[in-house]
C-alpha cells in the first residue's frame, strides 16, 4: 500500500472529505515522518508542532460543523524560511537573522490561513536564496532524498526535498533565477514559477525585486494548481502586484487542445547531459504522437542570460540587503564600539561568503564609474532577451526545454567554484528576466537513479496552459508516482 505521506494533496483532501482521516491524524502522520527522515534530509530549520496541531484541530472542528474555510482546509504546507509567518522565525538561512521573529504575516501566509491550510514549519534554503544547491545555508546542508550524497537543488532545496521525502504534501518556495524549478527537477517533483506580479511578494524577504516570485511545490500538477489558486491574486501591499483575472486552474487542466510547442536550440547546447537530452527527446516524441506540432525556434540571446542575470541580481541584492544593518533588527556585533562599526562588524561577522561576494559585486557594478558599463548594459541586454521570447511566442504557444542541463550534482562538487554553480541555471534564468511563467515536472530518471526535469515556459499569465500541457504528460507516465526509498 502506498504510504499516506506520499499521497497527493488532492487524494488527502478526498480522505478528509470522506472523514476516513482527520486533519489532526494527518498532521501527526507528517510530524512522525519528519521525525523519522529529517535527521537525514535536513529540510526543516524549525517546527512548531503545537501550533500545527492546534490549526489541524481547528480544521477538524470546522469540518464537523460543515464550515470549511477554503481549498486546502486541513492540508499541511511547508514554508521556505524566507516568507514571513507572524510569530515564527524568519532566518533566511542566515546568521544575521538567527533570532529574528516575524512581526507580521506575508500575504501568501494570510492566503494559506484563509484556505484552512496547516503551516508545518520553516524550510532550509541557500542563505538569502543565493545558490543552486542549498549548501550555502548557514545552518545545515539539505540532502537529496533520492541519494543523500547529492544536492537537492536550490535555493528552495528544503521545500523540494521535504515534498520529495513525504515530509509535507505541499510547500512554498521562491524563484529568482530558477530556485523553484531547479530543485523541483533535482528532486523529481513539480514546481512552478508564476508570472511576475501574479503572486504578492509582500512578506517575502527580497533578493532581487524585479525577478523574485513566490510559487508552489507539489507531487503533481493538480496539486500545483490547488496551491497556486490559493496564493495568486492582486495585493495592494505589493506595488508590482498585477490585477490579472485568476482562472480556475484545475478546471482548465483537462481542457488542453494540441498546440504549437517551441524547442529552443540554445537550451540543448551548453553542457547538456546525454541522458537529459534523451529524456527530453522522448518527451518531444510523446507530444508529437499526441497531435502537437513542434517547431524549432531560436532564443539567440540565451547565452547572455547568465551574465545579465548576475549583474541585475547582484545589484538588486546589494541594495535590498542594505537593510540588515544591526540597528533596528538583525544581529548586532558585540565587538562594535561606534555606530559605523555596528554596520561593518555586524554584517562582516554574520553574512556568509556567497552573500558577501554578491553584495560586493553588486556594489561594484552600481558604483558611479561602472554603472553604464555593467548595470545599464545588462538592463539593455535584458530587453533583448525579452524580445527573443516575444518573437518566439508569435509562432509557438509554449516552449519546452530541460529544466537543468544535468541531474543533481554531488554535495561539495561545485561549492568552491561559484561560476560553475551559476552555470547550472542556464535553462531557468531567462524566464525570470522576462517575467514569464514556467514549471518543471519529472520526465525521467538517470541510470544513477536521479530525476530529470522537464520545463515548460509560457506567455505571461498563461499558467493554466502550462499546467494542462504538463498534466497530459504526467497522466501518461508514472514519474509523479515514484518515491524515494528513504525511511
Amino acid at each position, binding site marked *: 500500500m502506498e504510504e499516506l505521506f506520499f499521497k497527493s494533496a488532492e487524494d488527502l483532501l478526498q480522505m478528509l472529505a470522506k472523514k476516513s482521516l482527520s486533519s489532526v491524524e494527518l498532521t501527526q502522520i507528517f510530524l512522525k515522518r519528519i521525525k523519522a527522515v529529517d535527521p537525514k534530509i535536513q529540510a526543516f530549520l524549525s517546527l512548531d508542532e503545537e501550533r500545527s496541531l492546534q490549526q489541524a484541530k481547528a480544521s477538524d472542528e470546522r469540518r464537523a460543523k460543515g464550515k470549511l474555510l477554503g481549498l486546502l482546509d486541513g492540508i499541511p504546507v511547508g514554508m521556505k524560511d524566507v516568507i514571513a509567518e507572524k510569530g515564527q522565525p524568519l532566518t533566511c538561512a542566515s546568521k544575521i537573522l538567527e*533570532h529574528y*521573529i516575524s*512581526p507580521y504575516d506575508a500575504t501568501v501566509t494570510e492566503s494559506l490561513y484563509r484556505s484552512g491550510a496547516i503551516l508545518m514549519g520553516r524550510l532550509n534554503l541557500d542563505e538569502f536564496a543565493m545558490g543552486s544547491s542549498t549548501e550555502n545555508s548557514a545552518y545545515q546542508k539539505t540532502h537529496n532524498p533520492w541519494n543523500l550524497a547529492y544536492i537537492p537543488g536550490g535555493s528552495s532545496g528544503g521545500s523540494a526535498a521535504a515534498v520529495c521525502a513525504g515530509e509535507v504534501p505541499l510547500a512554498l518556495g521562491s524563484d529568482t533565477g530558477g530556485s523553484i524549478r531547479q530543485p523541483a527537477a533535482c528532486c523529481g517533483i513539480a514546481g512552478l514559477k508564476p508570472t*511576475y506580479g501574479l503572486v504578492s511578494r509582500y512578506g517575502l524577504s527580497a533578493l532581487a525585486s524585479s525577478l523574485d516570485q513566490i510559487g508552489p511545490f507539489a507531487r503533481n500538477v493538480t496539486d500545483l494548481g490547488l496551491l497556486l489558486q490559493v496564493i495568486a491574486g492582486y495585493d495592494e501591499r505589493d*506595488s*508590482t502586484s*498585477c490585477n490579472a483575472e485568476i482562472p480556475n486552474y484545475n478546471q482548465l487542466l483537462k481542457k488542453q487542445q494540441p498546440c504549437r510547442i517551441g524547442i529552443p536550440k540554445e537550451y540543448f547546447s551548453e553542457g547538456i547531459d546525454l541522458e537529459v537530452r534523451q529524456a527530453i527527446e522522448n518527451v518531444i516524441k510523446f507530444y508529437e504522437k499526441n497531435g502537437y506540432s513542434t517547431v524549432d525556434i531560436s532564443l539567440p*540571446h540565451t547565452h*547572455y542570460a*547568465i*551574465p*545579465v542575470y*548576475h*549583474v541585475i541580481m547582484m545589484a538588486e541584492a*546589494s541594495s535590498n540587503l*542594505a537593510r540588515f544593518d544591526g*540597528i*533596528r*533588527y*538583525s*544581529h*548586532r556585533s558585540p565587538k*562594535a*564600539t*561606534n*555606530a*559605523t562599526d*555596528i*554596520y*561593518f*562588524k555586524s*554584517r*562582516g*561577522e554574520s*553574512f556568509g561568503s556567497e552573500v*558577501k*561576494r554578491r*553584495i*560586493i*559585486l553588486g*556594489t*561594484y*557594478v552600481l*558604483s558611479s564609474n*561602472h554603472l553604464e*558599463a555593467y548595470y545599464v*548594459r*545588462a*538592463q*539593455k*541586454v*535584458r*530587453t*533583448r532577451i*525579452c524580445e527573443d521570447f516575444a518573437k518566439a511566442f508569435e509562432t509557438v504557444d509554449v516552449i519546452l526545454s530541460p529544466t537543468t542541463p544535468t541531474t543533481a550534482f554531488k554535495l561539495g562538487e561545485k561549492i568552491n567554484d*561559484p*561560476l560553475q554553480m551559476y552555470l547550472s541555471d542556464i535553462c531557468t534564468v531567462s524566464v525570470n*528576466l*522576462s*517575467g514569464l511563467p514556467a514549471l518543471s515536472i519529472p520526465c525521467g530518471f538517470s541510470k544513477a537513479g536521479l530525476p530529470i526535469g522537464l520545463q515548460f515556459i509560457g506567455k505571461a499569465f498563461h499558467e493554466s496552459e502550462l499546467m494542462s500541457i504538463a498534466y497530459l504528460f504526467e497522466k501518461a507516465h508514472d514519474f509523479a508516482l515514484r518515491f524515494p526509498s528513504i525511511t
Partner: protein
Amino acid sequence: MTAEHINIDHIAMLCRIAISDEERRTLPKQIDTMLAHIQQLEEVDIRDVKPTLHTLEISNVLRSDKPGENFSVETALMNAPEQKNNQITVPRIVE
C-alpha cells in the same frame, strides 16, 4: 577591467562590510572571474535599446489614501538588538 584595478577595501567600505584578511586575498580573484564572464555582454548590439527595469507595464502605483493598522511599540521593537524606554539604543553619534 580586471581585479587588479579593483580596490576591494573601497567597495567593502561602500557596502559597509568588514572583510577578513583571507577574504581580502580571495575575493579579488573571484570578482575577476565573474567580471570576465560579465564582459561577454559587450558583444551584444544595444544601440537604441531601452533598458528593462521591470517586465510589467505598470507604473506609479499608489495605495489608497486611508490609514491602516500599524505595529504596536512592543511589536516594532520585538527584534531590536538593544532598547531602552521604548526606543532603539545606538552608540552616541553627535558629540
